[in-house]
C-alpha cells in the first residue's frame, strides 16, 4: 500500500501513524479501533479499545470486564492527533462498523466485515464517499448471489417440518454472535427456538444494551425429547448437543447457515443441510458498495482479494491486494 497513505499495514495490523491507532490489530497495541466483536477482529491484549457502544458491551462480555474502552455512536467524530475517526454502520452484525479516517482533506474508509441485506440486529450498511476504500472480499466471486431471507426461512421451515414428522430433531449450527440473533429474529415467530448456552449468553449481553431479542429456551440436560423434536435448535457447535440425554435418544440433524453452502462443493464439504445465509456481501453487493464509495483507489482484503483486484483493474480501476 502507498506509504504516504493514511493507513499502512504493519505486523500488528492496519496502522494510522498520523493518528497513532490500529484498526482490528492482530497483536497488542496501545490504541485499537475495533470494527466489530467477532474474535477474528476484536482480540484481547490491547491497552485501549474504541468501538461502537454496542460493540464495546460485547467486548466487555467476550474479552474482559477490566479492559479500557471508549464507546462512540455512529457518525460521532473522535480526534486522534489531527486525524478524525468516525464509525458508520456496516450491516454485518450488532454494533458492526466501517471506520472512516480523515486527515488533511483525504478520506479513507475501512469496511470491516459488511453486508447489505437486512438484519434485524444490525443498522443498515451506510455507503460513504472516500478516496481509498479498504473492503473485504470473503465472497468475491460472481457465483455468490444471496437468496432473500424469506426464501431461506421457508427452506429451514420445510426441512424442520419434515424432520419433526419423522421424529428427528433439527439443529442449525451458527456463530453465537451475529448469525444466531439474525436467525432468532427471522424464525422466532414461526417455530419455538432452543439455543445453546453460548448463544443465550450472547443474547443476554445484547439485551443488556437495551435491544430486545426474542425469548428462547436454553439447551440443557433436562430438555425433553418432545421439545427437541418440535422446536428448532440453534447451536454454536455439534458439541452443544453431544452430551444431552434427549439428543442421544432421538436423531439430530445438523444444518449450516452459511454463504459457503451456495455451491455444490461447499454443500458437500459441510455434510449436512445447508442454507445459504451470509453476513458478508455477495458479488453484486460488493461491487455496488465499491462504486458507491466513488473511491479512486480500492484495497481488497480477506477472501478472493486477488480475483477482485484483477477484475477491478480490468474495469480500469486502481486496486491492490492487502494481505492482512
Amino acid at each position, binding site marked *: 500500500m502507498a506509504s504516504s497513505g493514511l493507513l499502512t499495514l504493519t505486523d500488528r495490523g492496519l496502522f494510522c501513524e498520523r493518528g497513532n491507532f490500529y484498526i482490528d490489530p492482530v497483536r497488542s497495541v496501545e490504541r485499537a479501533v475495533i470494527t466489530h466483536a467477532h474474535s477474528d477482529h476484536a482480540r484481547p491484549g490491547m491497552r485501549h479499545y474504541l468501538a461502537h457502544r454496542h460493540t464495546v458491551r460485547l467486548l466487555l462480555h467476550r474479552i474482559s470486564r477490566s479492559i479500557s474502552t471508549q464507546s462512540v455512536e455512529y457518525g460521532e467524530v473522535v480526534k486522534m492527533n489531527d486525524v478524525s475517526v468516525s464509525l458508520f454502520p456496516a450491516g454485518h452484525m450488532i454494533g458492526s462498523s466501517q471506520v472512516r479516517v480523515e486527515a488533511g482533506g483525504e478520506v479513507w474508509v475501512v469496511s470491516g466485515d459488511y453486508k447489505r441485506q437486512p438484519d434485524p440486529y444490525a443498522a443498515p450498511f451506510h455507503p460513504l464517499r472516500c478516496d481509498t476504500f479498504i473492503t473485504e472480499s470473503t465472497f468475491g*466471486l*460472481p*457465483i*455468490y*448471489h444471496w*437468496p*432473500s431471507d424469506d*426464501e431461506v426461512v*421457508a*427452506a429451514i421451515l*420445510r*426441512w424442520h*417440518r*419434515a*424432520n419433526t*414428522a*419423522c421424529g*428427528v430433531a433439527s439443529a442449525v449450527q451458527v456463530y453465537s454472535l451475529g448469525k444466531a440473533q439474525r436467525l432468532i429474529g427471522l424464525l422466532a415467530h414461526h417455530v419455538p427456538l432452543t439455543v445453546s448456552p453460548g448463544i443465550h449468553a450472547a443474547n443476554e449481553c445484547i439485551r443488556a444494551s437495551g435491544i430486545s431479542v426474542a425469548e428462547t429456551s436454553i439447551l440443557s440436560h433436562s430438555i425433553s425429547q418432545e421439545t427437541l423434536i418440535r422446536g428448532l435448535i440453534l447451536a454454536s457447535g455439534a458439541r452443544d448437543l453431544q452430551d444431552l440425554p434427549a439428543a442421544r435418544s432421538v*436423531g439430530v*440433524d445438523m*444444518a449450516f447457515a452459511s454463504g459457503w453452502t*451456495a*455451491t*455444490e*462443493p*461447499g*454443500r*458437500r*464439504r459441510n455434510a*449436512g*443441510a*445447508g442454507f*445459504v445465509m451470509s453476513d458478508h456481501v*455477495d458479488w*453484486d453487493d460488493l461491487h455496488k458498495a465499491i462504486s458507491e464509495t466513488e473511491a479512486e483507489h480500492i484495497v481488497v482484503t480477506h477472501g*478472493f482479494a486477488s*480475483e477482485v483486484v*484483477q*477484475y477491478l483493474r*480490468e474495469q480500469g480501476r486502481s486496486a491492490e491486494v492487502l494481505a492482512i
Partner: protein
Amino acid sequence: MNRFAELCADLERTTRPNVMRQMIDTYGSSVSSETAALAMSLIDGSLCLRILRPREVASAVQSVAPLPQWLIDQSRTMGGTLAETSALLLPRSDSHCEHSLESTISLLTSLQHSDLRSRSEVILAMLQVCSVWERIVLTRIITGSRPTRCDLPQQHVEAAEATEHRMITTVLYAHKAPSIGQQTYSHFTVGVKKGEIYVPLAKIPNTFNEEISTIVEGLATQRTVEKFGPTHWVSVGIIVEIAYTDIVPSTRTKSGIKLLGARIVAWLPNHALAHVDSID
C-alpha cells in the same frame, strides 16, 4: 417449477430415507398425481433429457454475463461442475419460474430436435427469470443429470451398497488412457497415509462423469511431478472418496493390503490432505 426446485433442494438437505419420503409425500400432496409422477421420474433418473451440453450452457450464459474467462475459470474451482457454475454466474434475478413442471418439461422435450441456436436461446430465456435453485435444477435437467443430488431411498440400491466400505484417499498416480479418446487418464492409483508417507492402495478406473473427469484430469496433469511412460506421478492433494467391498493382506504392496471391488465415489475438492485416511 418453483415447488419442484424446492423439493430437489430439500432432498439434498437430508440423508435420512424416511425424511426424504416425508418431503416427497408433502410435495405429492400439494400437486396433481400426474405432476408428482413426472417429478419422481426426473428425480429417480428414469426420465432423462439432454438439451444442451455443459459447455453449451456455459457459452449461452457468457453471452449475457460477460465475465473474463480467467474469472469464470476461477469461479469454477469453487462452483463445482461447469453446468452448475454457469447457472450461478447468471446475474441475480428476484423472480421465479412461472411455468408448471409439466409445461417446462414439455417445452424442453419439444426443443430436443431444434438447432443449437434456438435451444440455447430458449434455455437462456428460461434461466434468466429463474431463482438460483430453479436455475441449478433446470441446468441439471437440460444437461442430462438428475435434478437432485440426493441418494434416493430405494430398497435395491441400499442392498447393493450395504456391503461396501468407504475411504478418503489422495491420488498418487494417473495412468494415461491407451488411445486418444474422451479421457486423458483411464485409471488413478489412490493412496492413504502410513506414518509420514502416502502408500498406494488401489488402481481404480476413472469413472468420474465427463465434467468432473475434465477437472480432475486437469488437476492431475497440473500436479504431475514426473512421468514413467504412461504412469504419471502426481503430487498428493487431489482428494477422492472411494468405496470397496473388502480388504485382504498382500505382500506385494507397500501398504501391505489390497482392496477388492474398489471404485471411485466422489472427488472431494474442498477436502484437505488432513482428511485422508490412514492405515496405521
